[in-house]
């Protein structure tokens, strides 16, 4: 019998999200599901979090189906905003709420991070990213378990971090964490 949590489920599942193709079927840490955009060069830093890091998932929205069926209380992602949008919209129906959001602009001579989330884990992440430079994806990957622990949807903390960073590639990525209420 369908329960309240599964409400809206059918309309959301079994399809295709924007290139969430490198969605990782299972994660080492059962407390958080991790999804990283296949097109994202930073994805390799997150492989340690996953048991099958290189296996593409095929039809992209299947990841959402997996998330819905998983008992994981949290989901973390890094990729394009459109992927975040689709996942957050779909997951809202399952009671997932945003507890962390980061924007990462790189290219040219500057690297910028704009982070929102709960004090504590976010403050620590901001401090680490301030020193990370090009290694920021690695730092972010290490922060995932702590970011996923919070259930504070107020996201009262906010940090802007800007650093010199010489990178010919220009890009904009978002990272996010959703937690089931």
């Amino acid at each position, binding site marked *: 019998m369908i329960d309240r949590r599964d409400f*809206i489920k059918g309309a959301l599942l079994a*399809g295709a999200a924007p290139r969430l193709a490198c969605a990782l079927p299972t994660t080492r840490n059962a407390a958080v599901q991790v999804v990283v955009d296949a097109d994202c060069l930073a994805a390799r830093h997150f492989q340690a979090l996953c048991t099958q890091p290189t296996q593409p998932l095929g039809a992209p929205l299947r990841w959402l189906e997996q998330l819905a069926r998983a008992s994981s209380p949290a989901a973390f992602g890094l990729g394009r905003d*459109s992927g975040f949008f689709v996942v957050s919209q779909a997951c809202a129906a399952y009671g997932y709420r945003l507890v962390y959001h980061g924007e990462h602009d790189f290219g040219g001579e500057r690297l910028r991070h704009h982070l929102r989330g709960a004090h504590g884990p976010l403050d620590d992440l901001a401090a680490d990213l301030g020193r990370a430079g090009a290694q920021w994806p690695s730092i972010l990957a290490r922060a995932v378990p702590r970011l996923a622990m919070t259930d504070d949807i107020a996201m009262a903390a906010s940090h802007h971090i800007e650093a010199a960073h010489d990178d010919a590639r220009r890009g904009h990525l978002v990272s996010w964490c959703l937690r089931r209420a």
Partner: protein
Amino acid sequence: MKAAAPAAPAIDAASAKRALAALRAAVGKDWVFAGDDAALDTYRDAYAIAPPADTRPWAAVAPANLKQLRKVLEAARRHKLTLWPLSTGRNLGYGGAAPRQAGAVMLDLKRMKRIIEVNETLAYAVVEPGVSYLDLAARLAKLGGRLWVDSTASPWGGPLGNFLERGVGYTPYGQHAETQCGLEAVLADGTVIDTTANGHAKTAHLYRYGHGAWLDGLFNQSNFGIVTRIGVQLMPAPAGYRPYLVTLAAEDDLGALVEALRPLGLDGRLAGRPTLMSLARAAAYGVTRAECQPGTGPLLTDTETRLMSEHALGRWNLYGALYGAEALMDAGVGELENALRAVPGARLHFAATRAGDAAFQCRAALMGGTPSMDEYRTLDWVGAGAHLDFTAVLPFDGDAARAASRVAREVCHAHGFDYCAEFQLEARALRLEVRVVFERDVIARQRAAHAALAALGAQFASMGHGTPRAHLAFMDDTAASYKWGDDALMRSSEAVKDVLDGQGVLAPGKSGLWPGRYAHRRK
């Protein structure tokens, strides 16, 4: 943290309490969402251009079947509630899942998600409101893929809601108003009608007409009843499928292409429902604006030239497909090549040369009966993107296309937006969909997008072009653009509304049609 207090309906606290109790009695306590329930937050427009509080519902109720739905209607009538029906709630760009006014009770039909029938012999399905294109595609795949689903570019929406909102797809079955066949609806007083006039007719989903007045259209984009099931005719998988792209080198080629394709459209040789996309709209599948050009302002000519060169795109890009046996498709290519001889800057491409082309891959999937959500990638054009859509319909005529495109481009640029547009080719008409892509978290851009949509509506109305779909915020304005004959059309609709839903229970303001008890909103 608790959600913000919702707006209350126009009834006192004691009555509201009784109303909620009646709704819970109808569907069970788990399926009524009210008060500070965060679930109510899901009934908002994800691309809101007004503060969410403006349209926050008072409650939501989710019946599982027709019996419960009729009980909900009974409760609504007794307690003077207004219901805003919702199928899958994915009408993004036109208002999403939000109602027109705060205080409504969302009638969420997502639990009514049965695929009642798939008939492989006669190629149709019968679905309820909560069935998405993804659901239907999965069912058809499980049955062996002998039938295709014609999906929109937003397949988490469903066939029933898309039909009701005059949506379209991209295969030869892409005009969804024409592939719907058979319809069941519930009126505000609880009466259930089947428009084939006989719920047991063996041809209910094969032949569109019963006896007497044909009422299906009455429920399309209206608030006369709640549609609870429709028949959807499905396309048998063709023997072959060959997607193509025609790129145009110059803006001036647009009119020439439309003229060249019209004869093919009129006599059925233009297969499927081809889509002609502006450069920015096609490019946005694969790159972001920031990667093309820093800062704000319209794309520079140099930028556009570079985009065209680096991504092998045209100033305009026609995505189409041929279907059938190889010989038939070869003949179709010949027809197309002949037609394109009249278009100096046209170049024809096929899949073999578009392997890394994200736009081509997405369009090829959709035209080939495979749902894809990759169109959402185009919102990355501006980072955290959202979109408002404006749709106008114009004659299949080169001059009309050129003039409409020029106006739409000027409006977009004047409001600080790139020109992201597409013409969807019908047999005799062109649907121009202008997509205003904006940064969804930037209030100034939300307002600019809203202003752009208003300007587009005013401009196209003054040019005499109709608007087959309207955003929630512009439904009254759009309705007012159809006021010929002393507003006879609206007055007739109001008369029907007064008869079928005199109490004004269902979707007040839908498509600009207000019930009598909202007389102050009637024009």
